[in-house]
């Protein structure tokens, strides 16, 4: 570890000092008449402050990262003696302070200088989003490659059996993703089959038929569903929906005796997705111009004919986009399936049987004592990457469709 705490605090101290020094120097340079200055004293102070603060901070960040990467390859970038680190970093701060103080004069455009620093900060902040994506991809790709070094990639992508060995030593684990993908898709399908019609009809009714009174009650209620954390839905599946489905459907029909099942997780996930589908569809339906509705009603169409034959076809691309976004949500959902779907990887058509999903297995392989050398742990990264690629594809497609759709009516 680099000893960064002291240089960090020292830099902040110097920067604060720099602000006041810069300000007072600007005032003294101005003499009695402030108007002689090209910029306000405050701006001189800010420039000094940023000049002192930001270069050492940037160096710290880059150095820490580099040292971290180097230490993995047994190269030591951090010197044994912390003094050297202190000298470099604090020296940089002092140099920044000194240089910026020297630049203070009547003609110095301190406002532009300080704004350039601020702009740099703003740009840095907006690259965080990019860095996050890079971090996601890097973190998963390297470990996935690691995994494929120990486990055949064909067996992973095309294997129909999922049975990790519990000895932890590996070797005889069969890690095929097919049963997990099957569970994921089956549950997502049930969820969408429930959420899309309900959400869509709810959105249609709310935007086209409902009285303001009903709307003012029903809309917040549906929005509440959106604000409920998924762990709550998970518990709902585990405590209420699972046993109910088992007692009412599965057992009397002889389809199984498990409370956790594809149906349980799918239905509860469907409930979770209702507000998502309905609010997206609501936006999309409202984007269809009123003149279309008038045109149809003016021809003597009933409201429902207008909706089915004019509004929905006009909104279709947007609705497809919304459904794809919902599908991506369903595929990536974790807590509901962890608590509601079961843990057994299975390729079966019976919706009342327990199955498991990609996300549930990521959780089970990465919680508890994990050994980052064994394929049983590393497989989680390959699963994660697969999940990321699938949802990314769906999202990009969906966002593209929705954006195109909106442009059409703008």
């Amino acid at each position, binding site marked *: 570890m680099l000893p960064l705490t002291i240089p960090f605090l020292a830099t902040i101290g110097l920067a604060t000092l720099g602000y006041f020094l810069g300000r007072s120097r600007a005032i003294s340079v101005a003499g009695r008449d402030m108007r002689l200055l090209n910029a306000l004293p405050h701006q001189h102070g800010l420039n000094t402050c940023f000049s002192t603060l930001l270069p050492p901070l940037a160096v710290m960040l880059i150095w820490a990262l580099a040292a971290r990467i180097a230490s993995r390859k047994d190269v030591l970038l951090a010197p044994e003696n912390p003094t050297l680190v202190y000298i470099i970093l604090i020296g940089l701060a002092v140099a920044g302070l000194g240089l910026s103080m020297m630049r203070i004069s009547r003609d110095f455009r301190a406002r532009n200088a300080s704004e350039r620093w601020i702009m740099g900060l703003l740009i840095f902040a907006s690259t965080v989003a990019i860095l996050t994506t890079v971090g996601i991809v890097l973190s998963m790709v390297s470990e996935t490659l690691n995994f494929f070094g120990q486990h055949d990639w064909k067996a992973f992508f095309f294997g129909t059996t999922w049975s990790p060995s519990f000895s932890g030593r590996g070797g005889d684990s069969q890690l095929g993703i097919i049963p997990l993908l099957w569970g994921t898709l089956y549950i997502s399908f049930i969820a969408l089959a429930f959420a899309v019609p309900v959400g869509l009809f709810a959105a249609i009714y709310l935007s086209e038929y409902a009285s303001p009174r009903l709307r003012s009650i029903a809309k917040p209620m549906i929005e509440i569903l959106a604000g409920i954390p*998924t762990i709550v839905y998970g518990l709902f599946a585990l405590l209420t929906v699972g046993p109910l489905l088992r007692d009412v459907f599965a057992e009397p029909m002889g389809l199984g005796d498990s409370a956790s099942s594809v149906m349980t997780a799918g239905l509860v996930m469907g409930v979770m997705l209702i507000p998502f589908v309905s609010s997206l569809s609501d936006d999309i339906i409202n984007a269809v111009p009123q003149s279309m509705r008038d045109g149809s009603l003016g021809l003597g169409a009933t409201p429902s004919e207008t909706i089915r034959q004019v509004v929905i076809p006009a909104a279709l691309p947007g609705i497809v986009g919304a459904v794809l976004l919902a599908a991506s949500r369903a595929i990536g959902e974790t807590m509901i399936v962890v608590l509601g779907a079961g843990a057994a990887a299975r390729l079966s058509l019976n919706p009342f049987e327990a199955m498991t999903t990609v996300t549930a297995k990521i959780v089970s392989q990465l919680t508890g004592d994990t050994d980052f050398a064994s394929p049983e742990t590393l497989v989680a990264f390959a699963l994660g990457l697969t999940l990321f690629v699938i949802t990314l594809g769906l*999202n990009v497609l969906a966002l593209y469709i929705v954006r195109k759709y909106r442009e059409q009516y703008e």
Partner: protein
Amino acid sequence: MTDLSASKSGSLLTEDKRTAKRNAAEKRFRAYGLGAILLACLMLVLLLISIVTNGASSFKQTYMAFPVTVSQEEFDAAEGSILKTGAYNKMLQSALMDYLVANDLLGDATEDDVKNMISGEAAADVRRMLLANADVIGTEIDFSLLANGRIDGYFKGRVTRETAALDTKITAAQLDLADRMTEDGSMVTRFNWSFFTNPDASVQRPEAAGLGVAILGSLYMMAVVLCLALPIGVAASIYLEEFAKKNWVTDVIEVNIANLAAVPSIVYGILGLAIFINFAELHQSSPLVGGLVLTLMTLPTIIISTRASLKSIPPSIRDAALGVGASKMQSVFHHVLPLAAPGILTGTIIGLAQALGETAPLLLIGMVAFVKEYPAAYSSELGLFGEASTALPVQIFNWTTRSDPAFVERASGAIITLLIFLLMMNALAIFLRKKFERRW
């Protein structure tokens, strides 16, 4: 064209067959729509009822009150022994026995029955109290002690005489005893403050399990998220909305942010595990790592809502500032940003609420660990927010995986607590929006 001629010559006052059919279809369509809304509302109600009926009882807890005298010798002996709480436990058990005998409440209960009435956690509570005020040693104190989880369950309807018959951990004699003690007033069920302050307890002691550590951990993480996500999110939004030129770089950033908002949360957990724990070697289970992961997860939400509120400020405000000679940066920081602040704040609170309820990524960075010590915000050894902690939603998950049904009650109770927190945050957001909403 018979239909046509019918509609041509037909009177408007009579509904023709085709129109009747179409109107029936209209009614059906409306009914589907109304049905969908009712179904959604029904699901919400069902969910809330399920959680409340399962969890409301966790806010009450059964305690026993009887006098205990701990002499100085007993105290010294107990403190000198290896199993300190074990020694206290014996004292409590014999004190309870004495009390029952003296008040003629014992009935047919055996000595073991009586011993098991008291929660294993009670002794630790007594010890803590005695260590805190040494001057009560030697005097008779009226302790109020946690009853065993099964006894507690009996008063909440979770344990009945039928289930007790099948359960090795509770006997009918104990239930009789509990009834007699209740009549006598020495056993009461009252509001369970310690549910909010206690740390988690072992699998055998659901009666002592509380949310203290989880609430503290969640608070720490929210602090981290607020301190990082708000400034970074606002700065990024200002750049993208006010300064960025339209080119492929900004396009990539925009698409990227939209996608990040839809990336499954578990992926952020993998990111946290790989980058913050394995690469940066931050401490597992620490609120710092949890906060960082949630920051990255919340950032897109905050950026999207902040940009929306910046966009809602009319250009005339910017023009006015530029017109008096302010720089672009000054117009943004002096005029646009303050006007957009309520909207930004609302979006941030909603983002925080989302982060507060998030579970999956936290499981991967080890926040599911069993933590009995309250984490300090700063320790010299582990740094800022570095001590192991848990979080509200993870604690809920943790409890659902335990077999004792008493933990289901706790988990549901914890959900109610979590939902109340979320409700308060959302209410605040709505209040802010209503109070500061401005139409241009």
